[in-house]
């Protein structure tokens, strides 16, 4: 899930002040931001109370099912049309993806109420750790299921670096060095520890990422059609 943290309140107030926004609509998210205790109903009501303390009127609020889902968020915006229309600004307690989705669903100025920090594993309730940076070129096959890109602070594919001491990390000294863990697990599993991982392909992770399954399907269907045409046309290319 996407891990978010509360944004500095003074920055939020500065945003509203700059716009002269007196009336605010608050939008949260029923998924990640609810689990992260940053943008669920409880946090929205807290933000509402704080805004009211600062002399703002909260025209309404909503916790969309999944804030980053464009269709769902547009629907949510329509449901709250009146309250949104009455607001000068929208404060969004979701990750940055959700903020942008809300911004695409209303013509009101939209402000982020949270900082988006990482894709997190839920270790247990309220404990999140970053294990994957979605690099698009996964090396977990060679690293015994431990990601060096993310969990080594330097992101080294081959390690450890010279700062490792007694198995601990140079940068985060209370943690085990990722590369020591990788080599230990590879050894336990009887796998090769001498292999050198090649340089990473950063072209696999060009911004902005985009996947369009519909288009992919259409292309695949078109390819099949032209193959069929080719074979009925006498086996071109054989």
């Amino acid at each position, binding site marked *: 899930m996407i891990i978010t943290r509360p944004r500095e309140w003074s920055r939020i107030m500065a945003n509203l002040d700059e716009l002269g926004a007196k009336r605010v609509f608050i939008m949260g998210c029923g998924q990640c931001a609810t689990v992260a205790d940053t943008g669920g109903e409880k946090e929205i009501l807290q933000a509402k109370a704080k805004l009211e303390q600062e002399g703002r009127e909260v025209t309404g609020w909503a916790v969309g099912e999944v804030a980053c889902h464009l269709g769902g968020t547009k629907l949510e915006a329509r449901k709250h049309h009146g309250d949104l229309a009455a607001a000068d600004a929208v404060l969004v307690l979701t990750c940055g993806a959700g903020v942008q989705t809300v911004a695409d669903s209303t013509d009101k100025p939209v402000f982020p109420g949270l900082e988006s920090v990482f894709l997190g594993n839920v270790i247990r309730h309220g404990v999140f750790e970053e294990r994957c940076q979605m690099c698009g070129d996964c090396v977990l096959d060679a690293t015994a299921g431990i990601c060096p890109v993310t969990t080594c*602070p330097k992101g080294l594919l081959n390690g450890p670096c010279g700062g490792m*001491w007694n198995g601990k990390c140079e940068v985060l000294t209370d943690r085990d060095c990722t590369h020591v863990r990788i080599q230990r697990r590879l050894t336990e599993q009887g796998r090769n520890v001498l292999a050198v*991982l090649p340089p990473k392909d950063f072209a696999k992770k060009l911004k902005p990422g985009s996947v369009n399954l519909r288009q992919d399907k259409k292309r695949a269907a078109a390819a099949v059609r032209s193959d069929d045409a080719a074979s009925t046309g006498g086996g071109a290319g054989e």
Partner: protein
Amino acid sequence: MSKFRDALLAGEFVITGEVAPPLGTDLAGLKRSVEILGPHCHALNITDNQGATLHLSSLAASRVVLDMGVEPIFQQTCRDRNRLALQSDLLAAWTLGLRNVLVVTGDDPRAGDHPQAKGVFDLDSTQLMSIVRGMNAGHDMMGRELSGATDLYIGGAMFPEAEPWDIQLTRALRKAEAGAEFFQTQAVFDIDKLARATEEMHAAGAKVIAGILLLKGPRVIDFINNKLAGLMVPAHIERRIKDAADPAAEAIKLAREQVAACREVCDGVHIMPLGLDSAVPHILGVDA
């Protein structure tokens, strides 16, 4: 063309030293260090933003040292440059007359004087070594032919005393496999561990130059034990220096003993005098 390489391959016991480029453009301090250390050394390492703190580039400073008639070991860290810049600087190094390169990962920016910097680490040291080897063979990392190859003598860092040893050994063997022909070690305090490391590296076809760090006073020892990553001064050595009437003199004596011991087990020593450059001849046993 690398006299340093020739000496190592001829089985000579080599001496290397280290000078740090300035923070700024004034080369006087750098030149003073080179004048003192140069005559005793086969080559001098020129550090590259060491400790993730800003300095004049190793590339430029290496050339200054070369012009003074001393052979530099150009250092390159993976922290500050991506693969284009690294390869470009390697080509530059060769055209500037530099013949040796020490490839290191580099400390994390959070440890240095620009803690907000992005640590690049596009490549790690092992990967970069194999790229240098490729450039020596006439092609860049994409396999494109170079019009004019390099012939750099490739070195790496090694940590004979960092535990767990099996992990360190694996790491060094991978580097040797990737192209490291010589290793300069972190400061050595335990000659048996150095001997063990040297044996392994010789089997892998690489030379070993042992790091000799002048523990010139209690403050240095405390700094190493509390602040520096990847190194610890053993308790008996800490006591020996700290309990001495004259810690600096004792440290010099210790370093001299260490150099003498290294002559029996490895291929050279890398002297890190921490500013006490004038003690170097004595440490090397060449002051008589």
